[in-house]
């Protein structure tokens, strides 16, 4: 038990170190192309971390959506807007102070959290056990995540589809409408 805990801790801390280095590099770099590439790296590393946390479905989705589609969208935007970020004029101390205070408050909040990976966490006690016991009997789907997503919480997924549909229409309206007005420029269509 303790040995496996320490093994997991070593892998996690390694991945965390890479994630933190990537995030700091993103904050410091002003070449936006490099920033976008590092954002893809960040997503891929987080997908690896999610896989070590037993969330294989989420890891797949994060790798496909975060490292794939999101990078493509960001690169498309860069092609239309430009690659260099200008040097910020105001000093970074106030944002830094706000982040430090918020972070300290959040860390103070985690002190009461249940221990990582314990089987008797409150989160593990009620609903999850029900789902795990009832899924093979009621749906026959071996993957419990799929069973919950499609069967037990189908309306959630329907709402998600609605959100994606709305966003797609809004993007089309924002970018497509500019092509019809010659005065607004033709960049949106390219």
């Amino acid at each position: 038990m303790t040995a496996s805990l320490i093994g997991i801790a070593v892998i996690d801390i390694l991945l965390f170190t890479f994630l933190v280095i990537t995030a700091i590099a993103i904050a410091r770099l002003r070449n936006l192309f490099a920033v976008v590439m590092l954002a893809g790296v960040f997503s891929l590393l987080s997908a690896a971390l999610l896989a070590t946390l037993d969330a294989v479905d989420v890891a797949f989705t994060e790798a496909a959506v975060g490292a794939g589609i999101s990078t493509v969208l960001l690169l498309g935007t860069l092609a239309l807007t430009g690659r260099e970020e200008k040097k910020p004029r105001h000093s970074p101390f106030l944002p830094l102070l706000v982040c430090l205070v918020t972070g300290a408050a959040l860390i103070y909040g985690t002190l009461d959290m249940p221990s990582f990976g314990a089987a008797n966490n409150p989160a593990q006690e009620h609903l999850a056990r029900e789902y795990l016991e009832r899924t093979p009997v009621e749906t026959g789907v071996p993957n419990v995540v799929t069973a919950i997503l499609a069967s037990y919480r189908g309306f959630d997924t329907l709402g998600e589809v609605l959100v994606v549909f709305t966003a797609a229409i809004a993007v089309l309206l924002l970018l497509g409408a500019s092509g019809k007005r010659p005065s607004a420029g033709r960049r949106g269509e390219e």
Partner: protein
Amino acid sequence: MSELVLDLEFIVGHYNYWMFVILMMTGLYVTVSRGNLVKKIVGLNIFQTSVFMLYISMGKIIGGTAPILIDDPDAVYSNPLPHVLILTAIVVGIATTALGLALVVRIRETYGTIEEDELLVLEHEMEFAEAVQGGGSR
């Protein structure tokens, strides 16, 4: 000695939350302090991904396996519910990212820049010009 072991256990049981908080605050810092709108969106993505990892880590059980049912009756499965919620959140997140980037492209078309400082200056100039025009016609 026993106190030290207790402390180590506490740290091993909680360090993951602290790491996620550090990542989250880096994302927040990028979003708040950088003027470039594309970089702000990248910062939001970092923030969002660390919240996802925080949720998933709460469902993990040490010694458990992914919640895909196998024949072994003694198998321990990690909590599938956070996985489902975060799957939905990832897809909604990419939808909002796409919308934000579309807005950035439109802002660039209209104002010719995506730097926050320059946008504020331009907006002030436009307001000033409107006020002068309104005053002159009356």
